[in-house]
């Protein structure tokens, strides 16, 4: 992965830059020692490592504002970082840039049950929000699998999803407001406890912008009342096609389950060996269908789904009769990644989305690629929304295997785009999928997105090297080639 050439002049000014930052964040909030900077050298995508020039850990919005203003004036690049759990290298540092860590922004500022929202600082963990409100029967809906560790600020940057997002939406559907700081130090408040924005939907634009537009310093999230009940079905199929048919049939019957997860044979076996959830081992595909909501509704729909499962030829079927049993169904799925980690020295987790009806085709092609590269692949799949997580098995200690795994991964993502899907459903582009962006977007599309960045960050100092394969200068992007000519009146119907 090629990052922009570090600016040696900036690196040479490290001491001076650190001194200036210490004027803003006193004491231990500015980290310069190499051994201490190593903590920040990578995020959840550990294949890439690069210690930052300096790490700064501010505690107030005012400090963030002063840091950014200083960085813009001094031409220093900034990589914002939450909990560092990104799976796409979104928080990968730059040799000539600072890490701006938001970990000290860890307070829940207000919980407002009447307006069903909470105002929190960006360093609060995703699960921390739910923990703060669950005694009153509420929760925060998006639940990425890293929810115990990942921060809400990072969730905003990546527009994180989770297993329940077909029914409850992604992060972007569960936010009401933000406080954010632009690279020039301007502090903006967007939204609040009310719905929809006056003017442009900057809240929607910021969500999923991967730290390239601004730094979030406060988040207002929507809270939901916990569903009255949840029950799950564990279904085994002799082919992924028939499992896929059931998913389509459930949706065609007008049912939107809270969660619908599929695993393939390799993932089932790995999970079962690890947590002994009681998964059937003689099936090609396993489907967990969870229904949540009012008890009367869940019981009624359970019957319907169960009948559909029979009609679609489920070879094994278990219905959760207790909360314990339901959690047990999930135990294997939730442990699928570490379980795969036990059967292979390393694995590389992909994140494409496909139109669901393309699943059999995509799985078949993936098996062919697996044979071609000589690397195994296990699949877990958010079946309801078509978000695929192939886990490519490799050994980083074997010469060339990481590169092979990356090539395999790129082929999978190209395939996703080819069948009408996208490069990333929830992990973000980051550095990982940056160079694949032209598979999905034209040069014009990408330039238009970069012009939006220029409106926020004209000097491209915020998280450069991420998302866009080639950084254009804003002045160049702003130019318009105007060819004066006659409007082709004869061709344009007018009245």
């Amino acid at each position, binding site marked *: 992965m090629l990052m922009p050439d570090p600016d040696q002049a900036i690196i040479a000014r490290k001491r001076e830059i650190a001194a200036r930052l210490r004027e803003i964040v006193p004491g231990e909030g500015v980290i310069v020692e190499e051994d201490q900077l190593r903590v920040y050298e990578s995020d959840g995508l550990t294949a890439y490592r690069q210690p930052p020039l300096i790490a700064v850990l501010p505690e107030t919005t005012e400090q963030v504002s002063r840091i950014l203003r200083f960085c813009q004036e001094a031409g220093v690049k900034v990589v914002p970082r939450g909990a560092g759990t990104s799976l796409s290298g979104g928080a990968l540092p730059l040799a000539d840039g600072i890490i701006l860590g938001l970990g000290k922004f860890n307070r829940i500022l207000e919980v407002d049950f009447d307006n069903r929202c909470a105002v929190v600082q960006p360093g609060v963990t995703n699960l921390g929000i739910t923990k703060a409100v669950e005694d009153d029967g509420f929760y925060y809906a998006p639940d990425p699998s890293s929810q115990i560790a990942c921060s809400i600020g990072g969730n905003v940057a990546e527009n994180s999803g989770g297993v329940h997002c077909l029914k409850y939406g992604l992060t972007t559907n569960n936010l009401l407001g933000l406080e954010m700081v632009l690279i020039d130090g301007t502090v903006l408040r967007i939204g609040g406890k009310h719905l*929809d924005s*006056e003017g442009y939907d*900057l809240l*929607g634009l910021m969500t999923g912008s991967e730290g390239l537009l601004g730094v979030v310093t406060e988040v207002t999230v929507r809270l939901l009342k916990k569903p*009255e009940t949840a029950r799950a079905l564990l279904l085994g199929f002799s082919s992924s096609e028939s499992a896929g048919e059931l998913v389509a049939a459930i949706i065609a019957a007008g049912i939107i389950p809270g969660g619908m997860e599929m695993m393939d044979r390799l993932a089932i076996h790995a999970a079962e060996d690890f947590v002994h959830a009681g998964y059937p081992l003689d099936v090609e595909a396993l489907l967990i269908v969870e229904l949540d909501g009012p008890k009367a509704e869940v019981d009624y729909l359970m019957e319907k789904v169960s009948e559909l499962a029979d009609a679609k030829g489920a070879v094994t079927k278990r219905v959760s009769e207790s909360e314990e049993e339901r959690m047990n169904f999930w135990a294997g799925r939730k442990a699928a990644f570490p379980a795969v980690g036990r059967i292979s020295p390393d694995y590389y987790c992909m994140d494409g989305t496909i139109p669901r009806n393309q699943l059999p085709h995509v799985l078949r092609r993936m098996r062919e690629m697996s044979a071609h590269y000589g690397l195994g692949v296990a699949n877990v799949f958010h079946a309801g929304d078509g978000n695929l997580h192939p886990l490519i098995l490799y050994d980083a200690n074997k010469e060339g295997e990481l590169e092979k795994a990356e090539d395999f991964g790129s082929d999978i993502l190209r395939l996703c785009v080819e069948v009408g899907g996208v490069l990333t459903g929830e992990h973000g582009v980051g550095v990982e999928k940056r160079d694949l962006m032209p598979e999905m977007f034209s040069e014009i599309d990408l330039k*238009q997105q970069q012009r939006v960045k220029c409106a926020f960050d004209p000097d491209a100092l915020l998280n450069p090297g991420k998302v866009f394969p080639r950084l254009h200068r804003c002045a160049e992007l702003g130019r318009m080639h105007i060819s004066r000519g006659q*409007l082709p009146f004869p061709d*344009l119907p007018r009245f």
Partner: protein
Amino acid sequence: MGARFQPESIEKLAEAVSWAAAESIPIEILGRGSKRGLGRPAQTEYSLDLSALTGITLYEPDELILSARAGTSMAEIEAALAEQKQYLAFEPANYAPLLNGSAAGAAMSGSLGGTVSCNLAGPRRIKAGAARDHFLGLKGVSGRGEIFQAGGRVVKNVTGYDLMKLHAGAYGTLSALTDITVKVLPAPEKTRSVLLFGLDDAAAVTAMTRAMGSSHEVSAAAHLPAAIAKAFGSSYFPAESRSVTAIRVEGPGPSVSHRCAALRSELADLAESEELHSHNSLLLWAQVRDVMPFVSDAQEGKGEEIAVWRVSVPPARGADYVAALQEGLGDAAASLRYFFDWSGGLIWLALPEGADASYQPVRAALSGFGGHATLIRATAGLRSRVPVFQPLEPGIAALSGRVKSSFDPIGIMNTGRMYVGV
């Protein structure tokens, strides 16, 4: 109004925009024209009419997605969805009768492009979101005259910036959209509403807040003060003049009846209640959605025009907002009519238009709550004189101007529709 161009392809549209950019000629972007009276009036010589770009191009019910050309009528889209027992969960409102009069408006159906460009949403906003939340992909022509696309045709996608959100509610000031992909969902099998009678505004907001904070998955909550409830003139409200608070639940039959019963028992200490079933429930919410209580006001033609405002506040503060507004209006409060949707978070106001639609007290009453007020209906003259959209903080205004320029550097696309110069 000068020439109107009606391109039949995206390429012709791009040619027209390129020409306007080259000549620095501002253009008005039109879909089917049903909401032309919303926003600051256009003062352009040329308009670009997208109503020839029509047709559903992709509809896969199992995949929960639909793509259509931007000029496709909502009537066509809703009919196609209904055939598959699906719908647009954000319950897009039809403001045509409010903006054009009930007779003319009844025959109008807005376009999909117009619906997302205005980020419309109905009563289900509080549960299912607005157009923004269901807008998955777009293709269009920027003010640079370039054809570009963003997003995709799958429901879960974080590849690149979410330019769909940016275009939802941009009122055509960035680009002319030509193709739109939206998420669709199965329509609920049954709908019912619990009606509570005789609550004052504050008690109604308390009741709605309690209902929304329950686990009964309420999909809409509105409060109609007595004067408004009476104006519904329907067969399904009691004849006497009392306020009505309506709480809707949707879903499979057994679930709906169970939840209605539970809500009635949990709210029994506040008011007596009734249930409104299928047809009447649908009718009630369609009227709330399309602001029908103010359609007749807007047309009474008593020699005085009516201004209609849409105010968004934190839902639990809805009644407080109205109280603050009444105080701010002083004697003029006597002619204020209002009702609440979105569990108190959306307040529809009708006021005599007068010299300035009372825009200062309407916005001053927001201080302390947070939120925004938009002048949805007023005469063109008034809409060019008073700020139709909530004025932006300076930092946001400056950034919005830069965002506008990033799509439309010369400022030709519906410029000024929302804010002067944007």
